[in-house]
């Protein structure tokens, strides 16, 4: 039926059969008879389309016979002829011809001989590049997918070169099928699970199999390297996926990574998903992220290493996905991640290795959440921060006093900080909606000194619009603040309004913060920075006067407090530095000169009240004996009147520049601790004026008043009870403790004292929480955030540490 078989029989054959017979040489080594092939092509082109179909059928017959007789040379010749016919005739309708053609390809693929399989695939790849003009009906690509996928895994028994050829053929074959089917609705749906379940693992298997090429660095971009080729095909596949079928590609990826335990180490999974993210149509990027999230859910009980890997992949994906493409369910995403955080924290682990694996996982969550938030538009960032804050039970309105794991709190705070870093504040009121500002400020009073710093850091990133934070981190005296190179812009009306409304909250919390005995130098510096930023960002004429008042209040605190000497010196020094700063910002020469004169006095007589001393970490007294030897610390803790900044003088100077100084005479708060040095200017009317201030904030005076009195009543009683509880202790015992405390302060280093008082305050705070709990349960339903800021005089924080009255 082939080559040599012509003669008399041929004469009886139809013309097309004779033309086909003639393309085969007598001797198979001679290859396709070129002249005759041209004749056949010309005939096919110039005849009616049916002729081409007949040619196809006839060639198929011959090919089948040759395969059965193992006359493979003729098989190759037939395939070459088919390729040429396909290319030449593609302008015509190829439909039926293609049917026979594909049957031939399948026949070859069914053979065991690798050469036949490769020839068939190569031919098919050529065919897949032909654009058919007419839509064609369902073809058997199902088999092709199965066979090509199988080829992607095989070839190991034939040696390296052959293996590379077979796998390469399989990969290109897959690409061909995808190309052929994807745009044609009449074809099989290549995205169906049956197909993707074969295609995707086949690609990944080769991408993963870097051993196949060894460490062949010289030819990393070798076109025929299966690993490289697989990646190309994979990209091609992913970028063709539309909304409806992106899942179909992604799910098998996840299954494969699970099956092959390919999450750890992370490299491969990250590589795969980077490719996915770079290839996927960008508007679908969020689908990838959602799917990874739900995959994380599936592994919630698994090895933290796997979870960390999935999260790392997620993180990389978020980095790549352009801003805003995370999708509508942002809160869901965050909720999900925070839930994992919580579970992980609860999961304390059996051993050290497991524990540190969980901690790594938690860090990964924090990073990922931060990265998520960074990719969101700014208004959503605030939403996210509020949401994260809602996860602190003690700051969520409903559950005051709820206990929460320390580790979790730290993680949540870190998350918050991450989320704020890329927020670009334009208008303060947008950055600090009350629902956000109130709980944030409440958090600024947390027990843990380290966490309080983080809260201040959050405030810095949000308040600072001009990159001044770094310049204000150090508490120092600048004779000329020009050296700080602060970037100052005139503050907008909106911001002034914001400060009028919310300034009091900032001030009150700053004052509360400054009284905490657990403060370290870092805490004070962070608070100073916040005050500095407030001045730089919003120090308009009205506001700057408030800030002078704030400084005076701090001075009042420092003189009337029971804080250790080191703390008090630090506060005085802070006031000096702050007044020096804002008197220059307000450009009031007289005020500036007055401030300088006091500073000069201190330089001469009371250096311990200046930043150079009080914030110099190297000269902190290690013990009382050292303190006594120090020339700089006074033998008594008396602060002379002339070393202090005087309100009346400041008022006069500021008034001379036309500022409205009426507010300067009234302290913001009643002094939290009423000691001997109680400010004589303080009166009931002052308290009333503060109350009015708060009322105007709320716009509901009656509510505020009621709340105020209600809290006061209960607080006083509760506090009394609490104090009496302390007093039930044996007199002797309390005396002994007193001595111990004094002794401690004599000998212990500063940080140790701080640590002790922290522990003490914890005990107290717990008690207080109980009381607050009680208050909120019995009182009129109210928002505790406001309640807190409207009861400054009775704040419990000022009443603490009766047994640390060292002086």
């Amino acid at each position, binding site marked *: 039926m082939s080559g040599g078989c012509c003669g008399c029989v041929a004469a009886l054959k139809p013309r097309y059969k004779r033309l086909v017979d003639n393309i085969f040489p007598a001797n198979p080594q001679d290859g396709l008879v070129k002249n005759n092939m041209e004749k056949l092509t010309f005939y096919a082109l110039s005849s009616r389309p049916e002729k081409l179909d007949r040619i196809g*059928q006839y060639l*198929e017959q011959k090919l*089948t016979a040759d395969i059965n007789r193992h006359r493979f040379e003729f098989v190759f010749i037939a395939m070459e002829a088919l390729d040429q016919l396909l290319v030449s005739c593609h302008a015509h309708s190829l439909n039926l011809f293609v049917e*026979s053609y594909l*049957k031939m390809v399948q026949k070859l693929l*069914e053979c*065991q001989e690798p050469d036949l399989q490769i020839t068939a695939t190569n031919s098919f790849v050529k065919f897949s590049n032909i654009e058919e003009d007419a839509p064609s009906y369902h073809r*058997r690509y*199902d*088999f092709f997918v*199965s*066979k090509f*996928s*199988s080829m*992607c*895994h*095989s*070839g*190991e*028994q034939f040696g390296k070169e052959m293996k590379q050829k077979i796998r390469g053929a399989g990969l290109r074959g897959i690409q061909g099928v995808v190309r052929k089917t994807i745009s044609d609705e009449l074809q099989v749906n290549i995205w169906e*699970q*049956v197909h993707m*379940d*074969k295609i995707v*693992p*086949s690609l*990944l*298997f080769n991408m993963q199999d870097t051993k196949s090429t060894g460490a062949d660095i010289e030819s990393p971009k070798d076109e025929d390297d299966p690993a490289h080729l697989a990646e190309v095909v994979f990209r091609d596949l992913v970028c063709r996926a539309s909304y409806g079928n992106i899942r179909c590609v992604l799910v*098998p990826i996840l*299954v*494969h990574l699970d*099956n*092959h335990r390919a999450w750890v180490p992370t490299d491969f999974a990250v590589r795969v998903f980077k490719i996915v993210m770079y290839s996927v149509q960008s508007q679908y990027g969020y689908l990838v992220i959602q799917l990874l999230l739900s995959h994380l859910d599936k592994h919630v009980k698994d090895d933290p290493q796997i979870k960390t890997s999935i999260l790392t992949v997620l993180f990389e994906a978020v980095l790549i996905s352009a801003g805003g493409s995370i999708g509508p369910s942002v809160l869901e995403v965050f909720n999900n991640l925070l839930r994992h955080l919580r579970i992980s924290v609860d999961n304390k682990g059996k051993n050290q290795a497991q524990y540190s694996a969980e901690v790594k996982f938690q860090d990964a969550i924090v990073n990922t959440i931060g990265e998520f938030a960074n990719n969101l538009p700014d208004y959503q960032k605030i939403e996210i921060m509020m949401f994260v804050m809602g996860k602190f039970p003690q700051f969520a309105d409903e559950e005051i006093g709820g206990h929460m794991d320390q580790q979790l709190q730290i993680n949540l705070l870190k998350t918050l900080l991450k989320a704020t870093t890329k927020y670009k504040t334009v208008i303060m009121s947008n950055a600090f909606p009350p629902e956000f500002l109130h709980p944030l400020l409440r958090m600024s009073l947390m027990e843990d000194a380290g966490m309080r710093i983080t809260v201040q850091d959050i405030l810095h990133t949000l308040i600072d619009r001009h990159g001044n934070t770094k310049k204000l981190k150090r508490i120092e005296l600048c004779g000329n603040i020009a050296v700080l190179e602060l970037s100052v812009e005139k503050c907008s009306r909106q911001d002034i309004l914001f400060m009028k409304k919310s300034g009091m909250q900032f001030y009150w919390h700053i004052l509360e913060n400054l009284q905490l005995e657990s403060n370290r130098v870092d805490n004070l510096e962070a608070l100073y920075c916040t005050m500095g930023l407030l001045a730089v960002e919003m120090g308009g004429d009205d506001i700057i006067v408030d800030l002078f008042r704030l400084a005076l209040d701090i001075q009042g605190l420092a003189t009337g407090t029971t804080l250790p000497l080191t703390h008090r010196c630090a506060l005085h020094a802070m006031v000096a530095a702050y007044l020096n700063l804002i008197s220059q910002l307000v450009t009031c020469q007289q005020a500036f000169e007055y401030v300088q004169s006091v500073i000069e006095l201190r330089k001469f007589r009371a250096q311990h009240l200046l930043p150079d001393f009080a914030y110099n970490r190297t000269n902190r007294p290690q013990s009382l004996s050292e303190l006594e030897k120090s020339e700089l610390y006074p033998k008594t803790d008396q602060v002379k009147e002339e070393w202090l900044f005087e309100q009346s003088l400041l008022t006069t100077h500021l008034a001379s520049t036309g500022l409205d100084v009426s507010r300067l005479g009234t302290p913001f708060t009643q002094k939290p601790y009423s000691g001997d040095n109680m400010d004589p200017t303080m009166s009931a009317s002052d308290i009333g004026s503060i109350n009015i201030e708060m009322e105007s904030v709320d716009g509901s005076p009656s509510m505020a008043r009621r709340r105020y009195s209600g809290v006061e009543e209960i607080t006083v009683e509760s506090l009394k009870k609490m104090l009496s509880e302390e007093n039930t202790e044996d007199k002797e015992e309390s005396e002994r403790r007193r001595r111990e405390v004094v002794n401690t302060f004599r000998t212990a280093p500063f940080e140790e004292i701080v640590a002790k008082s922290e522990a003490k305050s914890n005990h107290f705070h717990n008690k207080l929480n109980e009381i607050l709990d009680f208050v909120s349960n019995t009182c009129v339903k109210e928002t505790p955030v406001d309640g807190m800021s409207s009861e400054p005089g009775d704040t419990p924080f000022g009443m603490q540490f009766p047994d640390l009255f060292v002086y």
Partner: protein
Amino acid sequence: MEDYKYLFKVVLIGNAGVGKTCLVSRYTKGFFPPGQMATIGVDFMIKTVEIDGDKVKLQIWDTAGQERFRSITQSYYRSANALILVYDVCSQQSYESLPHWVHEIELYAGTKVLAFLVGNKIDQTDKREIPTHIGKEFAERYEMRFLETSAKEADNVEKLFTSIAYQLTAQARDLELRPEQQGTVITGGSTPIASAPSCCKL
């Protein structure tokens, strides 16, 4: 123009070394391969048989038992018309793996797939560890057909595949007779030439 009327896909699964590749070779090539290499990934052989005058083409997919091919081998279960789960009657361990494989079938194959449990290597009578009735009971419990074979001695091999071909053909014909059902059957993979649906899958 096709040289067959029905095409069915048969997939062999089971632990490595139980004799899957030998069974396929014995059936499609007629011999027991001497030094056989472990199967890599998946591979298939073709065998065309005649059932009551109709040519039936069996595409027999042989899978690797190794872990590193898990995702790819699983993907072939789904499109199978029949599954042959093989264990080695001389290996207790291969028998004990059966529940794992049954689980895989439940997860990845169609619910109505025709399933055969096959205990192979019965020629090694002196080494046998799993008595016939044990295998049979297992098969019954999971609603599988049961056969014991020897790829080496060609015992029951022909019978195994022929009966699969026979049953699948009967199913296909049955569906042909009830054309109103054709549209509802999802053709999971079998490529019936005469538009015969691929036997109640998925």
